[in-house]
């Protein structure tokens, strides 16, 4: 008799638990009108580029409402880092955004160097700039090819990956990693540039601008694509600011804000380059900004290649990294926008609290604002133009 009761209790418990576990539906099904229906885009969907779920309320093909459900691959990096020594966190920052890992390394390295008061040698700064710009090109090339797939053009990916392979080979030669580079150390680098880096860089810069022209002729200037993207997903300047949108997505809305210019870190003030902006803030402007940015990155690379001095690549850094108590926030312009690292140090060899401010997090939150009223195909096009990387949203 007693045993039976226990079983029953367990059963009811289980039921309660499952009820608790169900995710609250963002749209009440009873309130839908006869013409409306719910469509789940994701968690596994070809165009969400990761494990992201977009719940759409549709009327025919028109999006009436939208709800972004994130957190499927939450990795709790911030909690993990509280249990790691400062040196160990560097490879973790790679994994936030595996497409522009160098920039993420940089933000973290900057933060710790600022806490420790380390100034790094000039040659190391130049190498950092070069790696970061190569990384930006690499990320934008992947974005371009993925965007081609999103809008149904299957050929751009092949051309873009041809150039991307060159870039990856260069970064791999320097750091040893192809995607998760773990490139930087506090104070500079462990290894100098590899032999032949300058030659391959020169070769790459030599032909890359022609390739960008080809990319634009193939996809960006195509009349089908311009018809699909011009005037779609208009993000106004005010909305973008309020939502904390950064990076190319913000610059598409006629905001000349680029942390490399507005709040120069490292030696970016030495380089001559333009902040590319769009006019209308629509999807096409965001695409164009990224294409132009690749050209500007090539310019920076050229200047860095010419101006790189000889010398040390590593500053004097204490063996044990133990910053003084205090807090620091450093940010860099990654391929997707402002990536910031906020560290609170309590004087031990582990950070007391570390917070990563990731650009995609804010960029995704604006999706609801700009996608309502467009078509299903537009949601895909807009999402692609925001260039989201899911692991940095689900930090």
């Amino acid at each position: 008799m007693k045993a039976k009761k226990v079983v029953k209790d367990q059963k009811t418990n289980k039921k309660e638990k499952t009820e608790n576990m169900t995710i609250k539906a963002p749209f009440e099904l009873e309130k839908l009108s006869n013409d409306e229906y719910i469509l789940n885009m994701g968690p596994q969907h070809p165009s969400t580029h990761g494990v992201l779920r977009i719940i759409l309320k549709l009327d025919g093909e028109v999006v009436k409402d939208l709800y972004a459900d994130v957190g499927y691959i939450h990795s709790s990096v911030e909690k993990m880092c509280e249990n790691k020594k400062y040196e160990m966190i560097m490879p973790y920052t790679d994994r936030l955004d595996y497409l522009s890992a160098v920039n993420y390394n940089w933000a973290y390295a900057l933060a710790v160097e600022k806490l420790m008061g380390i100034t790094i040698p000039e040659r190391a700064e130049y190498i950092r700039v070069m790696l970061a710009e190569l990384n930006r090109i690499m990320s934008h090339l992947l974005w371009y090819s993925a965007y081609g797939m999103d809008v149904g053009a299957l050929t751009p990916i092949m051309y873009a990956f041809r150039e991307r392979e060159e870039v990856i080979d260069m970064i791999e030669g320097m750091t040893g990693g192809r995607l998760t580079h773990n490139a930087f150390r506090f104070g500079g680098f462990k290894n100098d540039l590899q032999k032949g880096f300058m030659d391959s860089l020169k070769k790459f810069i030599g032909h890359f601008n022609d390739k960008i022209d080809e990319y634009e002729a193939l996809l960006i200037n195509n009349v089908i694509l311009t018809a699909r993207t011009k005037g779609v997903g208009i993000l106004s300047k005010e909305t973008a600011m309020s939502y904390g949108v950064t990076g190319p997505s913000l610059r598409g809305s006629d905001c000349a804000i680029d942390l490399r210019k507005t709040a120069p870190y490292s030696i970016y003030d030495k380089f001559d380059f333009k902040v590319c902006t769009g006019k209308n803030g629509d999807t096409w402007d965001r695409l164009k900004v990224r294409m132009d940015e690749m050209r500007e990155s090539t310019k920076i690379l050229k200047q860095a290649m010419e101006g790189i001095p000889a010398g040390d690549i590593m500053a004097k850094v204490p063996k044990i990294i133990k910053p003084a108590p205090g807090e620091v926030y450093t940010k860099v312009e990654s391929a997707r926008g402002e990536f910031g690292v906020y560290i609170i140090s309590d004087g031990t060899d582990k950070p007391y609290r570390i917070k990563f401010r990731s650009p995609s997090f804010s960029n995704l939150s604006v999706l609801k604002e700009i996608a309502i009223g467009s078509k299903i195909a537009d949601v895909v096009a807009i999402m692609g133009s925001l260039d989201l990387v899911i692991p940095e949203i689900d930090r």
Partner: protein
Amino acid sequence: MELIKELFYNSGKPLGELYTWAHGIWAGWGAPPFLLDLIFQIIIGVAVALVVVLNALWIIYYDRKLSALMQIRKGPNRVGPLGLLQTIADTVKLMIKEDINPKAIDVLSFWVAPLIIFVPTFAVFLVLPFGKGLIPADLNIGILYVIAITGLTVIGILAAGWGSNNKYSLIGGLRSAAQIVSYEIPMMLVILSVVLLSGSMKMSDIVAAQANYKWFVIPQIIGFIVFLIVGNAEINRAPFDLPEAESELVAGFNTEYSAMKFAFFYLAEYTNLFLTSAIGATLFLGGWEGPFLPPIVWFFIKTYFVVTILMWIRWTFPRIRVDHLMEFSWKYMLPIALLNLVITAIVIKLV
């Protein structure tokens, strides 16, 4: 020797002789003649089926190789010499795969949809003029028959979309219906201008009207371009592949299909590509007309020329959006086709 030459260059004559000869023997046995016709029809059916399957195998391989060329890669090159047996391997794989039937499907429409899509494709081969006299049935409403039959495909796609009980499939099915219905009209107008020029809807007459290299592509260049675009849209290939737009609708109307049922869709898609090209070649490029080579060879050369253009378009352009698709049809294709028809009519009247 003479017979073989005749068979290649003027297939109609020896085939007709064979037919009357067989009928003579059949009558000598005292059997009813319709039975012999039935046997002949079955033989023709089997021959057409053979052509369909072999052609689909080849055209899929061709598409993959051509796309590989454009995408600076190598394409299939592992199975057989130059990867020629790749499609056969794929077919075998699809045949022995598990046929998954989701729980909540509408069984009838789910099962019957692949067949509905495939049968019209098959039936259109009836009026394709492969060579001089080599046409399974030379109907005097040949081209009308083609339009009527190909229009049936939409029912299959709709049935697949509805029967799958999947929202992606349903959207795909509905998109396809809208697409095919709105592109049917410019298609008909373009074909009508060709019919005006040739003065007949019979396929053999249309080819005959283009004898001595008076191909309709020259007076009807706009018509030909419109035909290519509209034909591409009718067979749901990129950039008009909205019903199965994989980045939006996962796989559209065939999301839930697997194994042989999926293979039917695949087969139908590529056969449709061949058909549209074949009709385009017949209407605008003089069909089997050509010097030296046997007519059937010319027919395939011209058809594959059109196929190549369509593939080239497919592997270059991004996908069009659904409302632009409608807009494009009604705002651009229809007026142009109509204008083309009117000008053709006026010119014919004047000359």
